[in-house]
């Protein structure tokens, strides 16, 4: 379980986080959604002890990250936004070093490497140097590394950024599988469909503040079920409706170029902040 209370962090005069509070329950997928610069990565860096907070409290499975840093660090695995594997070491060597850093014995490490490479469909690449792997394989390896020491919490910072849609979907499948196996997952993303597909709860982060937090269905329900995008004076506008019929009759009354679609989290975000996520 993750518990964050009144988290603040400034970089110079700029407030990156202002009084952020949330909690994530066991076996939950919690998506932290916001545009670039909203404070998503700063939050995950504080939660994973890479950046010091200015104020507030963070507990990971009841361990305070400053009072019990080693215990708190042993609770989580992290899939960073940037690949930070040792490119001149092999897949197996990277995992071995990670296991030793987490105080695992070599026998357990070998067993877990076997299991995880099989789970992530990487078994045939165990001796490959990292620099020879594709972006998608590296990302799967980052997930394997994060899971090696069987953490109860998994932080994923933009886990599918820069990947093509097919690989992104396969990684979504792995994330669901990991949650079903018992992990609590906190992920940051600016992909709407990622949050909608994966998350049990979503927090909207804008300019360092959480502006809304709920299930994806509840977040969008406030503005309607259907959206019509249309051009008005060469600007894209969106109208929201509770039924498809009402959206259809609205389209009939307008000129060509309208699109009817389901309301999504981006619509809810814009309605609350006046800004786009991506």
């Amino acid at each position, binding site marked *: 379980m993750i518990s964050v209370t009144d988290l603040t962090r400034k970089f110079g005069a700029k407030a990156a986080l202002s009084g952020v509070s949330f909690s994530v329950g066991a076996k939950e997928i919690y998506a932290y959604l916001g545009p670039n610069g909203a404070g998503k990565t700063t939050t995950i*860096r504080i939660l*994973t*002890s*890479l*950046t*010091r907070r200015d104020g507030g409290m963070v507990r990971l499975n009841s361990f305070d990250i400053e009072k019990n*840093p*080693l*215990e708190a*660090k*042993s609770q989580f695995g*992290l899939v*960073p936004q*940037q690949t*930070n*594997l*040792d*490119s*001149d*070491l092999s897949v197996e*060597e990277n995992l071995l*070093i*990670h296991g*030793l*850093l*987490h*105080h695992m014995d070599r026998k357990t490490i070998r067993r877990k490497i076997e299991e995880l490479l099989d789970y992530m469909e990487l078994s045939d690449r165990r001796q490959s140097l990292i620099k020879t792997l594709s972006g998608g394989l590296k990302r799967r390896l980052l997930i394997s590394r994060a899971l090696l020491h069987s953490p109860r919490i998994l932080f994923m910072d933009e886990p599918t950024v820069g990947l093509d849609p097919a690989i992104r979907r396969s990684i979504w499948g792995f994330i669901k599988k990991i949650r079903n196996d018992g992990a609590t997952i906190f992920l940051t993303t600016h992909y709407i469909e990622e949050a909608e597909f994966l998350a049990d709860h979503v927090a909207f982060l804008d300019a360092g503040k959480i502006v809304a937090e709920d299930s994806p269905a509840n977040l969008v329900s406030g503005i309607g079920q259907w959206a019509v995008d249309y051009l008005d004076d060469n600007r894209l506008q969106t109208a929201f409706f509770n039924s498809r019929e009402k959206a259809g009759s609205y389209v009939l009354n307008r000129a060509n170029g309208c699109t009817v679609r389901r309301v999504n989290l981006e619509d809810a975000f814009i309605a609350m902040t006046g800004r786009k996520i991506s």
Partner: protein
Amino acid sequence: MNGWYPIFLREMLLFKRKLFKLGYLFSAMVVPVIYLITFGLGVGRSMPIEGTDYITFLIPGLVAMSSMTNSYTWVASALNLNRLYFKTFQVLVQAPINPFAIMIGEVLAGMTKGLFASILIITVGLLVAPQFHLSWLPALTLILNCFLFACLGVIVGMITKSHEDTSTYNNFLIMPMSFFSGTFFPVSRMPEFLQKLIAIFPLTHTNILIRKSAMDSQGLLALAVLIAYAIVFFFFGSRLIRKYSE
């Protein structure tokens, strides 16, 4: 505190890969060997110094210099790149290990690389100067020198804001030490006011100690200075790791 081992192991695995590349051995040896040929076999061939032939005087100095540059450069450069570009240092900060363990792992790896380069130069030295020999005191000095410069490497690797910055430290710290600290000629030949300045450099004390076959009062003072530097550098480096925040 056993968290140092995976850090050391990681560096050794990377070192092993580099070792089998010709470029590594060449780069570890080329500078001292050029100095050895230029100053030892060329300029100083018929120039006795401190009661011995020049090449026998020069080789311990080159060993000290080589141990300094290799221990320092490998750690400073790797740590800087791992922190700023590859982001692999962050993996260590986020692992459940003590900051002292990170420091110990990095320093032991730097020492190993420094000692390896030193052994290469010692081997060359034994071939070209049969009078040259290494007793326990120079060997101990060499280990201490590798330790303190690996610690300095951690400090520089942690405080530099870009990889280019590390060359600034090389130019203002390592390069003057290499030439003025008694590697190529005794410090006593320098003007008196410069001797006082040079006495601040840790390599000056390494060069004093590495050329001694038995301990005396001058050697004890040099040893005390080196130990003091080693302690200060170790704790300062550890503190930088402990306080690390992005």
